[in-house]
């Protein structure tokens, strides 16, 4: 192929192909960001939900759990935990940690206030209502 296909042709294909892909990706991104408010019920994204997300991040929950299937695989999926367990159970669970059952995987105690627990649950409730194309396959996550 050496005579017919030169290095400069290869380089031009690289520039052209990359430019095309960038533009296509940006166009799809533009459309997606336009759709996200509706698919995520952004109208329900209150201050409280935002505070809950901040708590989620600053306790590094993603270091053990998945959220919508992304994160660590050590502990259960929490994107749909609101639907699986409900408000009261989630709060009692977090307060009761660690279980200290010998040999069982342990979750830390975060010493949340009641108000903080409300924020977290609000975040998990909002998350559980995102249109995820019916993922996970069932309530177990």
């Amino acid at each position, binding site marked *: 192929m*050496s005579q017919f*296909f030169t*290095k400069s042709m*290869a*380089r031009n*294909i*690289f520039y052209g*192909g*990359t430019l095309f*892909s960038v533009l*296509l990706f940006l166009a*799809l*991104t533009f459309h*997606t*960001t336009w*759709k*996200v408010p509706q698919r*995520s019920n*952004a109208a329900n*994204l209150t201050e409280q*939900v*935002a505070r809950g*997300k*901040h708590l*989620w*991040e*600053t306790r*590094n*929950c*993603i*270091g*053990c759990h*998945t959220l*919508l*299937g*992304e*994160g*660590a*695989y*050590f*502990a*259960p*999926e929490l994107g749909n935990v609101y639907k699986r367990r409900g408000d009261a159970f989630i709060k009692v669970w977090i307060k009761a940690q*660690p279980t*200290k*059952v*010998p040999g069982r*995987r*342990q979750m830390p105690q*975060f010493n949340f206030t009641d108000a903080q627990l409300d924020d977290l649950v609000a975040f998990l409730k*909002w*998350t559980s209502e*995102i*249109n995820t*194309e019916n*993922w*996970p*396959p069932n309530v*177990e*996550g």
Partner: protein
Amino acid sequence: MQLLQYKSQAVAKPYFIAAIGLFVGQILFGLIMGLQYVIGDFMFPAIPFNIARMVHTNLLIVWLLFGFMGAAYYLVPEESETELHSPLLAHLMFWIFLIAGALTIVGYLSVPYASLAEMTGNNLLATMGREFLEQPLPTKLGIVVVALAFLYNIGMTILKGRKTAITIILLTGLIGLAGFFLFAFYNPSNLVKDKYFWWWVVHLWVEGVWELIMGAILGFVLIKITGVDREVIEKWLYVIITLALVTGLVGTGHHYYWIGAPGYWQWWGGFFSALEPLPFFAMVVFCFNMVNRRRRQHPNKAATLWALGTAVMAFLGAGVWGFLHTLAPVNYYTHGTQITAAHGHMAFYGAYVMVVLTIISYAMPILRGREVNPERAQVLEMWAFWLMTVSMVFITLFLTAAGILQSWLQRIIPNPQSFMQVQDQLHIFYWLRELAGLVFLIGLGVYLYSFFAKDKPQTVEVSEPAPTATVASQPATT
């Protein structure tokens, strides 16, 4: 034969040494987590799983970055046929990066994460607590500073010297790396948007710009060890990186199936990401082709082995294991299971760990004042190659088995079981993974030892190259 062609290439050495040191730390924390998978309360509450995981993954990223920077400092002067713009700046950035990295790890291990966030200004600009981007704000800013200084240094060197396809591709990859990292500072309160752009760091790194860096490093090493014509190698490189970006950019969509983005991503992401194995396949063909066409028998057999191994393992880990779960109907059941972990391990190891070890294998002997390592050191290094690579294959196989069973019990059967219930049935695979991890650690030990191995006295005189003036002027940093 002259060894180091440009004196300033020597700045690569501390980068490589730091990379290897942090690699050891990464593996130790991997083994801690591996035990926590089966003995849940192991080291709790001193080191909870999430902390160990941050240390494991952040050390991985940081040492790969050290490796990439070392590679650039080594190969850019030689390619550009000129001294590095500022060796002093490179040394300075080395210490800044190392100290920032060390402080971050100490912070993770000694302070509760929430307090660390509080102390480091996360309330001014919240960027922490997202997978792989857990670093405190000052660390993230430090990374940006180091990256800018590094790009400036490398960029100036390339500008003043000869421009080759390898340096241009390397520089493009490095600019992309720094550029996409800026999305680490974007953290909207809408989780869907947060996730969407989080992947612009993670996916567009490993399945985008890092492939350019990998291609450039492999190309450089292959030119050196095979003596094949540069024109041929550079043409191949352009084909490979075209395939990488054309498939990898829109291929980001394989992460957009279930996070709240529109359903059409199942088609766009599925189609383009299904083609992502192509650049990795091309790398295999390229590497074997070049080695078969070699014009010289390079005495560094270990480096040749690493180069070929990189191509094959990257194709297996990224190409084959990536393809396994990239189509939406499969990913629906495997998303976020041990299958993902299996793929993540073999892909990261096969592509980026191995390419860094390839350039280290080629460059480190020269940086230490000899063309190649003594025979016995090379044999040990090749043992390390096989121990680490084979154990990584087994880690991947055990995690894949665990992942298939997990998807089945938790997501497919009519009476799905809960997450924790399923995990209890996977212990055998997790134990086997830990065992394979121990073999990996042994391989790493052999690797470290190979740096200090000498030949038996009688062979030394035959294989030791005559010291040259360049060598004598090197700073003694062993």
